[in-house]
């Protein structure tokens, strides 16, 4: 297990828990939670500076050791996503991009065609692309063929905390995938993260379930342990289900039976 690293685009990570930076009460709390999570890859959004309402520089609260993963949130089309990615890169952010193209404000479901189109453009432009997607195994294949570094299926609607609602589709994706599968969005509890890891997800991305916990720092630690436990269970190999009972103690030489 010591060399069980997550490799994305040739870069290795010890942690299989990726965290977002949204929805915390303060940057200080966020920093403490990220530290407790052990995350080495952390998402940020890109927005226009509001000159009337100054907040601190979020990146100054993040250790240099974490890799920032800018997202394209706010993009409703491929062109808008590409514009955000290029702006982020020009300004010195990493060339890694969490691609999300979401035209649907109600369910926040990603547009598969625009996501694929943006992925093709960004890969050709030299980006390492991690696309957020509905767990469609065929789309995952197309994104892989386009050169994406991972595929990131949602488990349930963003921020819903409803857990692995799309588990069967994600399982098929994991069986078929040749790039890491990162379960992103919708997880509400550490047990769900553990289950995703047990059935073979390469990593999970968690934001709201940590940030909106009563104690985000403690919850970050809980997710860290759950992801580690789930991964170890996957590596260990689950026993497989049986229909009938099988005694764990010997059936022969029972004291009562003499």
């Amino acid at each position, binding site marked *: 297990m010591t060399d069980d690293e997550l490799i994305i685009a040739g870069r290795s990570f010890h942690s299989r828990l990726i965290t*977002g*930076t*949204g*929805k*915390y009460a303060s*940057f200080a709390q*966020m920093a403490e939670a990220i530290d407790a999570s052990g995350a080495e890859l952390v*998402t*940020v*959004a*890109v*927005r*226009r*500076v*509001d*000159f009337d309402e100054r*907040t601190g*520089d*979020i*990146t*100054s609260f993040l250790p240099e050791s974490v890799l*920032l993963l*800018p*997202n394209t*949130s706010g993009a409703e089309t491929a062109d808008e996503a590409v*514009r955000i990615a*290029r*702006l*982020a*890169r*020009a*300004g*010195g*952010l990493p060339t890694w991009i969490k691609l999300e193209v979401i035209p649907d404000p109600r369910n926040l479901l990603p547009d598969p065609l625009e996501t694929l189109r943006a992925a093709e453009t960004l890969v050709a432009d030299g980006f390492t692309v991690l696309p957020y997607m509905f767990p469609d195994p065929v789309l995952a294949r197309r994104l892989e063929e386009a050169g994406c570094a991972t595929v990131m299926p949602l488990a349930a609607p*963003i*921020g819903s905390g409803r857990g692995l609602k799309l588990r069967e589709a994600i399982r098929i994706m994991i069986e078929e995938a040749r790039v890491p599968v990162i379960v992103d*969005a919708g997880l509400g509890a550490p047990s769900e993260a553990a289950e995703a890891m047990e059935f073979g997800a390469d990593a999970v*991305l968690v*934001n*709201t379930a940590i940030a909106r916990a009563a104690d985000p720092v403690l919850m970050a630690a809980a997710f860290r342990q759950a992801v580690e436990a789930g991964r170890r269970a996957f590596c260990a190999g689950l026993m497989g289900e049986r229909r009938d009972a099988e005694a764990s103690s010997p059936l022969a030489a029972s004291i009562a039976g003499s």
Partner: protein
Amino acid sequence: MSHCTVNGRRHQLEEGETVARLLERLGVAGRYALVERNREPVERSRYEEVKLGEGDRIIVARPVAGG
């Protein structure tokens, strides 16, 4: 006097104002200040040399909390 817009707001330009000087005047500090000029991203290494002109539409952005 020439003007540009910054995030949709009218901005009066100094003579020969560069992107770097704009950021300084706006007080935008931090590790990452992201700049787009007329929908084209400006490379950070060129902030000192790119001069702003009349009617330029400038976007100044930065990383914020997000998932």
